[in-house]
């Protein structure tokens, strides 16, 4: 030992258990901060990856520019990439056809592939020659094309133009779900064949700026300098939002909400470390008194405590960071398992540097700041404390226990918790913060459910529809499809439109649809009144309320004027929505296939939907396509479903991850804090045992202390948490979708249950220690 500070290491070895608890606290705080920040960062990275894949990497799109304006924008130093872009037949009703299939034509510069990864050429080259075109993969497969082949594109006028295939690129979800092709040509080719107006009207200039140039300001500078109407500038809100560069008022509100949550997380970390250090130093009053007695001055004591705190950080911070990295990796791996196609771009073992940095900063700075107060307190310890007799004294007691209201052990337990105001406030705040964090984060679940609608269980991966909307698909096809091993579910619908109907004195037009058992099962989720069974068994119909101007009640009779004659059906239930979109104001009735056939005489489907197993390949879809034959449209929704699923999974996983981390930390924090408090008083407990306190009374004393902390933690946490929940809900949900805030009963119940269970677990450990405690050893240590 060469320096008095070397005593830090020696003291740490002697006090391994107490040091371990403080270390655990620092580990938990660093873990909380870095995993939440890390998860947020990974979520932003993942959302950014998806946003770039689906919406493109461009930041702004300028419309109606002159050649000169385009040149000036492109020459700006902030512009990294730019491309002209124009498209025709986006609505797929203009009559541009490739092999009889509606086709979207896009013209852009080769640099567009940087701005819109969806447009990147997978095979072959960008169409640089005038009569060259790149096609989507679906066109390649279905028209059996290869690079260098010629393909004839028919125009709305009936004319045809032959292009040479220069390459192929991926389908987009829009194209596959509409069963359409995409043809990509150069801007020059587009100008020659597809431009309807002037170039100024047709083309947009897509621009990507350098990331940290202040994109909003650059855009407004460009508009001002080149006299461009700011309203005509489109922005990639999602990408800009994720770059924290959006000026959209709603995004600003989201940023504020995120900043508030980040602050709360940081504050929770600070409180946890502070209360742990406070308790650690407080229980060694005598030791510091002894140091003072031996001649250590106040500054030396402050230095001692600070060095001790840094010593804990040396192992605790890396451990907290390692835990958070493991959790983030686990979540990323889970995302890749849940939605492999969507998260291919996500790093398998990505490291979030901002998350780690936040963990280190919060850990280190908090430990140093938190060490200041106990260090000062330790320095103030009088040398007399070391030689005074009351060794059991943990803190300087100012008030006596109230033994009139409770039994002695309960009164002592309450006093142990509330005796020291500072310790009480820190402990209560650190417990309250768990509730506050949980309740503040929970409105994000509502936000998610609004912003990203989860994929309906009925969502079809592939739909076979009659081209004319009639009922022309044989039910045998559905039976055949059921035999296919990659098909998980097949469910068809028949459809009869424009049926004159009458309910009571009201005449209206109705649509009649048939469901099979699977669809009736899904319909249960949207049942508003009545029951499903009668409709499924063929003795009634379900009325759909969605978009309807009419309301029906179960038992109501409806007369339908069908081609076979007037038929009366009874409404057995009402649904809030159905598995289809229909014009507003349309009344829809749903019945079983048998009743539909009985009423209409139609025994064929209008639509067959199917869901696939995860083993499905494009080859399987092609096989189904050929099995369906001609005269039908095939809508392939796999890509779109995967995008919806992926976006939802990603957000849900990270959000529930946050909540799980907060819950876990709450549990550990409560257990650790109570264990620390008991450790601090173990000698005092030994004396009480010697005097005659039974183990049962000791346990009740610890329980009373725990309950006091938890009770006030719950009171403070619920008061602040519910207020913050209200504020966050308003910011995230009400301001956008108008939903009124409701009391977060379930969330409050969940976190309170967690706290109570954690408190029970927190009492269990010390109880065991008390049972095993040797009175003689404890007394001798005094």
């Amino acid at each position, binding site marked *: 030992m060469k320096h008095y500070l070397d005593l830090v290491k020696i003291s740490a070895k002697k006090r391994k258990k107490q040091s371990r608890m403080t270390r655990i606290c620092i580990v938990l705080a660093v873990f909380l901060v870095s995993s939440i920040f890390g998860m947020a960062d990974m979520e932003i990275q993942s959302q950014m990856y998806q946003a770039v894949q689906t919406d493109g990497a461009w930041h702004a799109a300028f419309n109606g520019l002159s050649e000169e304006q385009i040149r000036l924008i492109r020459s700006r130093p902030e512009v990294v990439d730019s491309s002209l872009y124009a498209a025709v037949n986006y609505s797929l009703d203009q009559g541009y056809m490739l092999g009889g299939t509606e086709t979207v034509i896009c013209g852009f510069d080769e640099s567009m592939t940087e701005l819109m990864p969806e447009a990147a050429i997978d095979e072959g080259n960008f169409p640089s020659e005038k009569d060259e075109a790149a096609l989507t993969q679906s066109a390649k497969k279905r028209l059996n094309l290869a690079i260098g082949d010629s393909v004839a594109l028919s125009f709305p006028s009936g004319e045809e133009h032959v292009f040479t295939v220069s390459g192929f690129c991926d389908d987009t979800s829009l194209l596959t779900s509409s069963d359409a092709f995409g043809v990509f040509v150069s801007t020059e080719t587009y100008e020659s064949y597809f431009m309807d107006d002037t170039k100024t009207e047709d083309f947009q200039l897509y621009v990507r700026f350098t990331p940290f140039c202040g994109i909003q300001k650059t855009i407004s500078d460009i508009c001002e300098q080149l006299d461009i109407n700011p309203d005509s500038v489109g922005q990639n809100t999602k990408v800009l939002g994720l770059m924290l560069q959006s000026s959209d008022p709603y995004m600003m509100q989201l940023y504020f909400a995120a900043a508030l949550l980040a602050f709360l997380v940081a504050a929770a970390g600070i409180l946890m470390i502070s209360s742990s250090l406070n308790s650690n130093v407080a229980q060694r009053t005598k030791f510091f008194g002894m140091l003072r007695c031996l001649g250590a001055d106040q500054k030396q004591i402050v230095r001692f405590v600070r060095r001790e705190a840094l010593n804990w950080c040396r192992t605790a911070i890396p451990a907290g960071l390692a835990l958070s990295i493991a959790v983030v990796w686990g979540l990323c791996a889970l995302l890749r398992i849940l939605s492999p196609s969507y998260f291919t771009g996500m790093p398998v073992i990505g490291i979030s540097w901002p998350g780690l940095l936040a963990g280190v900063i919060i850990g280190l700075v908090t430990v140093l700041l938190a060490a200041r107060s106990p260090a000062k307190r330790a320095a103030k310890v009088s040398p007399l404390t070391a030689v*005074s*007799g*009351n*060794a*059991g*004294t*943990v803190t*300087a*007691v100012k*008030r*006596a*226990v109230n*033994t009139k209201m409770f*039994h*002695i*052990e309960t009164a*002592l337990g309450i*006093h*142990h918790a509330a*005796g020291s105001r500072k310790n009480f406030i820190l402990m209560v705040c650190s417990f309250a913060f768990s509730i506050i964090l949980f309740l503040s984060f929970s409105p994000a679940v509502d936000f998610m459910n609004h912003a990203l609608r989860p994929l309906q269980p009925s969502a079809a991966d592939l739909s076979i529809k009659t081209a004319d909307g009639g009922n022309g698909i044989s039910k045998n096809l559905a039976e055949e499809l059921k035999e296919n091993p990659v098909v998980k579910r097949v469910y068809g619908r028949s459809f009869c439109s424009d049926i004159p109907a009458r309910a009571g004195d009201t005449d209206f037009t109705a649509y009649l649809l048939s469901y099979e058992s699977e669809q009736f099962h899904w319909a249960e989720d949207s049942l508003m009144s009545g029951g499903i069974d009668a409709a499924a068994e063929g003795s009634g119909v379900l009325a759909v309320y969605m978009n309807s101007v009419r309301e029906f009640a179960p038992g109501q009779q409806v007369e339908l004027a069908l081609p076979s004659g007037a038929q009366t059906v009874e409404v057995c239930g009402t649904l809030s929505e159905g598995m289809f979109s229909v014009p507003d104001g349309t009344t829809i009735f749903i019945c079983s296939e048998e009743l539909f056939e009985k009423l209409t005489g139609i025994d064929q489907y209008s639509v067959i939907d199917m869901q696939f197993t995860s083993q499905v390949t494009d080859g399987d879809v092609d096989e189904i396509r050929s099995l369906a034959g001609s005269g039908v449209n095939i809508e392939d929704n796999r890509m779109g479903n995967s995008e919806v699923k992926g976006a939802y999974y990603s957000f849900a996983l990270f959000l529930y991850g946050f909540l799980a981390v907060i819950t876990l930390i709450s549990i550990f924090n409560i257990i650790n804090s109570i264990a620390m408090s008991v450790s601090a008083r173990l000698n*005092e407990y030994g*004396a*009480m*045992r*010697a*005097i*005659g*306190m*039974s*183990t*049962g*009374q000791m346990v009740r004393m610890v329980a009373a202390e725990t309950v006091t902390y938890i009770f006030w933690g719950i009171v403070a946490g619920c008061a602040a948490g519910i207020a913050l929940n209200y504020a966050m809900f308003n910011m995230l949900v009400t301001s956008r979708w108008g939903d009124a805030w409701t009391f977060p009963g379930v969330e409050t119940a969940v976190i309170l249950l967690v706290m109570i269970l954690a408190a029970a677990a927190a009492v269990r450990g010390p109880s065991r220690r008390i049972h095993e405690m040797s*009175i*003689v050893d404890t*007394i*001798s240590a*005094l």
Partner: protein
Amino acid sequence: MEILKVEHLSKTYGTGEAKVEALKEVSFSLEKGEFAAVVGESGSGKSTLLNCVGGLDTPTSGKIWLDGQDLFAMKEKKRTVFRRQNIGFIFQSFQLIAELTVEQNIIFPLLLDYQKPDQRKVEEVLDVLGLSDRKHHLPGQLSGGQQQRVAIGRALVTQPMLVLADEPTGNLDSKNSRDVMDLLMKASRYYQQTILMITHNEHLTAGVDRVLRVKDGHLTDLGGVRA
């Protein structure tokens, strides 16, 4: 009337080379109202003897009867209650509960039994201890001597069969030591309180009824010295 009977008491710590025989076949007994002092060098085994007699430590072999009841035939829970009601402890470092006032500390064993203390009796104890004007003070506000007096009050309040005092004057100056000894003496003489006191200070044995010496785990009865 025999209150305490110790027979062939042995206590061994550790095994093999680390084996320490703290007490070897110790036997003795105390009559009601007897004040005995156990003297011996540091490490001689006197504290082990006190801990075993007080039911805080379990002997390796031998028996201890208190008022005819075998202390170690009882289950731990029962022994705790028995100890609380029948044995009073006085420690060298007082062991007062910092959060309780003087009065609360004194009645602590009664409160652990969920008994309503007899206020008249409590006042009487406070008066005997000379702490009536300090009854609402916290231990931190008392001198060492006053704190030890509180500890004595706590040991006596249940009127136990036996009071065990482990170096009760070890942390006190000579005046306070004298006061404490006077109090113990008073308890023994006027209240017929049986007391077993450990001390390494042989001057304190001047007024006690019997002196027992522990050396290397063996106990020798030196007989009565009371004037």
